């Protein structure tokens, strides 16, 4: 099954068109004379050269950060590519300067719980909208779309009051538990995908006597795997990097997630006089590396997911 994310039949038809160059003006040549061919070659060299320069510009902040994490305090700002004095000391010290290991564990717990729950609940709801036909479905789905437009700032305060009255402020629960109840964006994404699968698959299973749940669990979910992967990866990235919720709900440094902990380190080491930026730099590398790893593992899903989000 090689179903890929761009979901509607219209987009799927477009998929096979492959090389990136086909769609650009000037690249279609019926009768290439020698000079035209030379011009094309010059253009291609210029394009690749420009991309290489820009590639360095976009990569350099990472390189700078990683390089700085191997420098002793006095040299963090020397902007050398290769550290003059190479030290692993920061990677030893960073775990003692702050409970970074604990923050890491907290973040993993929240990220896994949030990503798994939102993927399953959103898939359920998406299936409810994609498969069943009932009166009021359009209106309900309209509410899903509308809630996507709502800025977080409007619901932020009452949501805090809910968790506060339940006694969960200061715990990790408010950082993921809302994901039990599906998320509008993922419902939209997954529904689009499910609608792209022919209904016959599911009708046949129903005729064979499968229950509604079995059709969802055994047939729809496995078929939707590519879209589920996109949902999972998007949410992992969103939760791993989320600062606002952690600022609102976490009080004690033993409950911090990595973004909240990093912010606390900037406050303590950066602004309040100690100025040991080498520790902050090292912690930033440690905070970022898992996301880079996720990107390389799930590059296809991420790129397709992002691309299709703009083709609505």
């Amino acid at each position, binding site marked *: 099954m090689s179903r890929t994310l761009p979901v509607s039949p219209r987009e799927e038809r477009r998929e096979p068109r492959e090389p990136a160059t086909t769609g650009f003006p000037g690249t279609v040549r019926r009768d290439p004379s020698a000079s035209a061919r030379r011009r094309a070659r010059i253009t291609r060299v210029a394009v690749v050269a420009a991309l290489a320069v820009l590639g360095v510009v976009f990569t350099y902040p990472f390189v700078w950060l990683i390089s700085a994490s191997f420098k002793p305090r006095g040299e963090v700002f020397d902007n050398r590519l290769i550290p003059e004095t190479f030290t692993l000391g920061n990677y030893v010290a960073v775990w003692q300067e702050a409970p970074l290991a604990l923050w890491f564990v907290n973040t993993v717990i929240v990220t896994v719980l949030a990503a798994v729950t939102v993927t399953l609940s959103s898939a359920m709801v998406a299936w*409810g909208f994609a498969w069943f036909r009932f009166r009021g479905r359009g209106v309900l789905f309209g509410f899903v779309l509308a809630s996507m437009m709502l800025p977080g700032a409007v*619901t932020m305060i009452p949501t805090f009051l809910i968790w506060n009255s339940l006694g969960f402020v200061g715990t990790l629960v408010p950082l993921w538990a809302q994901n039990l*109840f599906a998320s509008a964006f993922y419902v939209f994404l997954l529904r689009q995908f499910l609608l792209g699968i022919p209904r016959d698959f599911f009708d046949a299973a129903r005729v064979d006597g499968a229950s509604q749940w079995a059709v969802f669990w055994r047939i729809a979910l496995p078929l939707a795997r590519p879209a589920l992967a996109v949902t999972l990866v998007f949410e992992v990235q969103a939760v791993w990097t989320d600062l606002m919720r952690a600022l609102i709900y976490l009080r004690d440094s033993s409950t911090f997630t990595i973004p909240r902990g990093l*912010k606390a380190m900037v406050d303590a080491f950066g602004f309040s006089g100690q100025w040991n930026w080498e520790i902050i730099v090292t912690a930033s590398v440690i905070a970022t590396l898992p996301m880079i790893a996720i990107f390389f593992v799930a590059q296809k899903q991420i790129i397709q997911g992002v691309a299709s*989000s703009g*083709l609505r």
Partner: protein
Amino acid sequence: MTVTTPPSRDVDRERSRRRAARRNLRSALLFLSPWIVGFSVFTAWPLLYSAYLSLTDYDVISDPHFVGLDNYARLAEDPKVLQSLGNTAFYTLVQIPLYIVVALALALLLNRAGHRASLFRTLFFLPKMTPPVAVGILFLLLFNGQNGLVNSTLRLVGIDGPAWTTDPAWIKPGLIVMSLWTVGSSVIILLAALQNVPVELYESARLDGAGFWRQSWNVTLPLISPALFFIVVVNTIAGLQTFDEAYTAFFGAGNGTYSNDAALFYVIYLFQQAFEFLHMGYASAMAWLLFALILVVTGIQLLVSRRLVYYEGGQR
């Protein structure tokens, strides 16, 4: 409807069909139940309650105290509201055009890069994976006025760079430049749109004698305009709510040394009012002002787009 008594088989069939419909609805609602609960508890109720709170004085400890429209009246007189609105407007108005130009330039280059495109696409997208807190930290370090990488590089070409992180006039421009680093997702959206332009259109344009610029203006631009519009809308909404990077770099505990009012964006001030000063009523009024602003701005963009955005098939 027949007047004669219907044969009992029809009644049976009708009844069983209704039963099936009811069972179908029940299953549907079961599948939708997570969203129905979530929408009621975490969207609908908060929306109503924050509208109510915006009419009260509320500090979480004692009960909300109804004050009518006082909070909204105070918004108009609060110099920090005005300043944070100004900061946010400056940021959004300057950032969006730059962001679009950079994203489009990168996408156009990638579109001509052939098989090497995927490598560069990866390089451009990677910054998007960086936690915004780390981006805020990178901003402080790279844009440091004395020995940051940016000014060191500028010095190589003989430019004496400004104090990006301390000079109130340069804080927002610095944050805008930094934000261009995370342009990657928009590049991917635009690249996908560029690749969806049918080659036949370029061929017929060429046959009609259109050169490179005519093709770009009359073929490429209209066909990618929906994607461009999408990026403008989404990034405007995000820009109006910008928080993470600026908050990391300029606010929070222990940071009293900076003249950081230049980085006081609207949502940062809202956050301070709500969770640092516990002025929940006032902050709710601020949230509703933001909501209204976003609706108005998006509405204007939609109206303008009717003239400028071309949708295949003519209607959307």
